[in-house]
């Protein structure tokens, strides 16, 4: 094959026209979802099957209700579940749309190319697709080694493929959910407390008196159990302080809103420490007993006065002092929330470490109303032969450069997949499982070049997203309502497990992830690792090791286990509590960081500013969407399918914008958004920034036997911020990508409009 651009056709869809179908195609398909009936069904007339939600990582346990014909009617939270307490968020309630979506991938697809080099897909049977995958994996193994096949993954399907590749001999994997999201936060807390936060975060919101949100957007993110606890906190009259360049939903529910200048959060955190230490508002006994490096910290923060921070953050120093005192008054029942997506400015481990330190001096860690010590049930692994040891793994790509790159870093795998990479750890083939790396990993042009440079790509997905267009083989996965996955065993106040079990048969020719991974594994000669017919056997075996069974879990859905250790630090009375750090204490001063050459105490350094005429691009969440994954989901699409660009009235005046006007965005590198977005002029944002919700602007399209397949509703709606994130600032400790240092200008004329020759 010549040096043809193998994925040429994708460009056809690159700059398509905007403003598509004005009428929603949904009204035509409504009868597909629910048969018209005289009356709604009572719960007692339906069958319920246990599941846990896959619409987001919160994984709320729920019941899928099916009617007498076996049709899915609704999904309702499981009352026993501490993630949901019986109440799903809109995405969970609307999750049935993921099953009903007619745009789903329906059959295995294989890339073909005609004699003119035009590329499209053809439908195939599973056997053919799976044989071809195994064949190509072996080919790459012969040329480069097994390690050269990388995996990008997300959700509960991902681990099936991660394990399959590990059984085979590749441990080259990464999740955008780590390096583009929370790895920096985990690193900041590990450096301080010797342990990360994991999920759900062990914030004791239920019992707190003061919750500080600095770049956390509860109510816009629907981290379900925590949104619920915040509501109870509002009932109790607790104090909420929100730091945000936008008047977010939670800012509106707060006692105090600090409209900070973006990128200066660390300055505020340091000034808060300055006030709390100098006014002796910190928890002296706790600091004395559990922390290391307080004197260095005290000295370090002297220069970070509230007045200094006021000039940096544009906040009123009096407000900085007042909020510090509010925290001090609540100590130790105070939470400075660690956030989740924390990959912002390239010093994110240091910023989240400042959050960790602030919590420590207020005595909040391991305290009621602060952070509790979570517990989870350890399910034994189903027995299998030992894993082969790969010659290299994700660790070799990252850990030399970034000491706290404890998980795979997607952007490093991308670098190693580029044609210009000439080192020993080449990535030549990819599995991309349930993650659309063209929306989640920044610098899309680079990601596309990496994809172009692959010899073989398998995409496992339920929907046709951007990245499916780059696959050689697309495998259509069954949705969570149609499949069994691993038992959810997540940390909480009370250890618990939850079961996901299929409520319905997979629609069309889709298959569950476990089956797909196993079938590939068998074709690679890994039968010793797959000594089971059905994944039910694995779950039942695991459940029996902890005194339950698949039968029992089908009945109850969620099961609790007794705690084995105290929930709060004060309950450790026999011996002093030991932290997993070098000093055995909470390291306000990080001895590891000092040794590795990172700042042992967080230092504020100003971030680059945008060029004149450019505004900072802030992206965020909508409560009814999980990024790009749900935009096309019927009910959720109906709830919000018209994303808007928030601009302050001053900006609107400057650019002469009106409400509802269609605009395009351009970044300083000249990258222009593919599609347009409507303007919302609002006082709810600073004048130096614009805001849009992440996940819109889908433009993925594939052709199957001449027929176009795409997300018919989501296609072309709104702007994908990822297209405009050309600049990333790399976090030195983890390699995570800071993405909030990007700037855009507003275009009022369609930059894609073709000249009309009359």
């Amino acid at each position, binding site marked *: 094959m010549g040096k043809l651009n193998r994925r040429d056709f994708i460009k056809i869809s690159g700059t398509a026209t905007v403003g598509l179908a004005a009428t929603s195609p949904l009204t035509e398909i409504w009868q597909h979802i629910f048969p018209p009936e005289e009356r709604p069904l009572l719960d007692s007339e339906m069958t319920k099957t246990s599941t846990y939600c896959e619409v987001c990582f919160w994984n709320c346990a729920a019941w899928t209700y099916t009617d007498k014909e076996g049709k899915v009617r609704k999904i309702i939270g499981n009352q026993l579940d501490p993630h949901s307490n019986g109440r799903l968020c809109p995405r969970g309630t609307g999750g049935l749309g993921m099953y009903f979506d007619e745009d789903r991938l329906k059959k295995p697809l294989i890339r073909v190319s005609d004699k003119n080099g035009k590329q499209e897909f053809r439908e195939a049977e599973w056997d053919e697709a799976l044989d071809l995958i195994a064949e190509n994996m072996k080919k790459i193994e012969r040329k480069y080694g097994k390690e050269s096949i990388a995996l990008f993954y997300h959700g509960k399907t991902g681990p099936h493929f991660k394990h399959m590749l590990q059984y085979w001999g590749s441990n080259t994997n990464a999740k955008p959910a780590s390096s583009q999201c929370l790895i920096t936060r985990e690193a900041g807390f590990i450096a301080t407390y010797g342990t990360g936060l994991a999920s759900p975060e062990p914030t004791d919101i239920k019992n707190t008196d003061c919750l500080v949100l600095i770049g956390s957007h509860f109510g816009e993110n629907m981290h379900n159990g925590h949104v619920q606890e915040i509501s109870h906190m509002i009932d109790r009259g607790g104090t909420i302080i929100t730091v945000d360049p936008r008047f977010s939903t939670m800012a509106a529910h707060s006692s105090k809103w600090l409209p900070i200048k973006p990128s200066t959060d660390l300055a505020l955190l340091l000034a808060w420490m300055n006030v709390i230490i100098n006014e002796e508002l910190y928890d002296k006994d706790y600091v004395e007993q559990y922390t290391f490096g307080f004197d260095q910290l005290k000295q370090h923060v002297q220069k970070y006065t509230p007045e200094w921070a006021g000039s940096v953050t544009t906040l009123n120093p009096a407000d900085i002092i007042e909020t510090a005192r509010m925290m001090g008054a609540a100590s130790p029942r105070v939470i400075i929330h660690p956030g989740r997506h924390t990959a912002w400015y390239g010093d994110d481990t240091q910023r989240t470490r400042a959050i960790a330190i602030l919590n420590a001096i207020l005595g909040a860690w391991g305290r009621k109303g602060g952070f509790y010590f979570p517990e989870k049930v350890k399910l034994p692994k189903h027995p299998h032969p030992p894993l082969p040891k790969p010659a290299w793994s994700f660790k070799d790509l990252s850990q030399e450069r970034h000491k706290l790159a404890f998980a795979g870093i997607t952007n490093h795998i991308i670098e190693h997949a580029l044609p210009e990479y000439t080192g020993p750890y080449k990535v030549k083939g990819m599995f991309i499982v349930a993650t659309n790396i063209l929306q989640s990993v920044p610098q899309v042009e680079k990601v596309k070049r990496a994809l172009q440079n692959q010899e073989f790509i398998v995409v496992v997905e339920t929907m046709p997203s951007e990245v499916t267009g780059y696959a050689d083989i697309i495998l259509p996965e069954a949705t969570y309502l149609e499949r069994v996955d691993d038992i959810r065993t997540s940390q909480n106040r009370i250890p618990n497990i939850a079961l996901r079990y299929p409520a319905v048969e997979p629609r069309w020719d889709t298959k569950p992830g476990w089956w797909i991974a196993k079938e590939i594994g068998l074709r690679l000669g890994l039968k010793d690792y797959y000594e089971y017919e059905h994944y039910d056997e694995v779950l039942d075996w695991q459940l029996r090791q902890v005194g339950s069974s698949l039968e029992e879990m089908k009945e109850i859905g969620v099961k609790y286990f007794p705690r084995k250790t105290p929930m709060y630090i004060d309950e450790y009375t026999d011996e002093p509590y030991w932290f997993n750090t070098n000093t055995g204490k909470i390291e306000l001063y990080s001895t590891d960081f000092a040794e590795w050459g990172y700042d042992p105490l967080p230092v504020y350094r100003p971030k680059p500013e945008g060029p004149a005429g450019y505004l900072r691009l802030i992206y965020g969440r909508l409560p009814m969407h999980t990024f790009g994954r749900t935009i096309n989901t019927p*009910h959720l699409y109906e709830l919000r399918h018209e994303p808007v660009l928030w601009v302050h009235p001053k900006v609107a005046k400057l650019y002469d914008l009106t409400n509802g006007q269609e605009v395009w965005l351009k970044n300083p590198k000249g990258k222009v958004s593919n599609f347009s977005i409507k303007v919302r002029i609002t006082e709810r944002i600073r004048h130096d920034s614009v805001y849009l919700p992440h996940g819109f602007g889908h433009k993925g399209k594939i052709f199957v036997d001449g027929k176009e397949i795409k997300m018919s509703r989501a296609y072309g709606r709104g702007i994908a911020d990822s297209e405009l994130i050309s600049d990333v600032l790399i976090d030195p400790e983890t390699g995570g990508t800071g993405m909030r240092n990007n700037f855009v200008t507003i275009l009022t004329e369609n930059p894609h409009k073709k000249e009309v020759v009359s």
Partner: protein
Amino acid sequence: MRYAMAIDVNKCVGCGDCVVACQTENNVPIGYSRDWIIEITKGKYPDLMMHFESQRCNHCEDTPCVRTCPTGASFIDEGGIVKVEHDECIGCGACIEACPYDARYFHPDGYVDKCTFCDHRVKEGLDPACVSVCPTYCMYFGDLDDPDSEISKLLNSREWYTLIPEAGTKPQIFYLK
């Protein structure tokens, strides 16, 4: 028996879960809804106030919709729940015009549809779907005739408002301030 709903705007985050839960519970065709969310922002940066309102039929005491219905399809059911008998509705739309809250819509099957307070659930002793799904626990449903009901106590102890009180319809959805 007088059913009513109270919604605490201090807790609502405008997520729309009530809308989706209503759609899946009541077989509301996609593209239509019996309840909806609006956002109200007041003030100038940085002195702002914002809240959401989950809105639906107000199950008014004085019902212009029922009064204008030529066939008697719109009626007041037990507990003051305003309903539409689908079989008797001719889809003339007079009630839609009469409702000051725009709470009724044409169902594609040819009748007018609206919130029923999930009376099929209420009869079973359950809350309406929107109330029982709400992740912020901002909605309360109950009997105003019972002074010990949670809703009665809330309305006695908290400040509240109703929508378009000047329409004189005596709406039974109360927003807690």
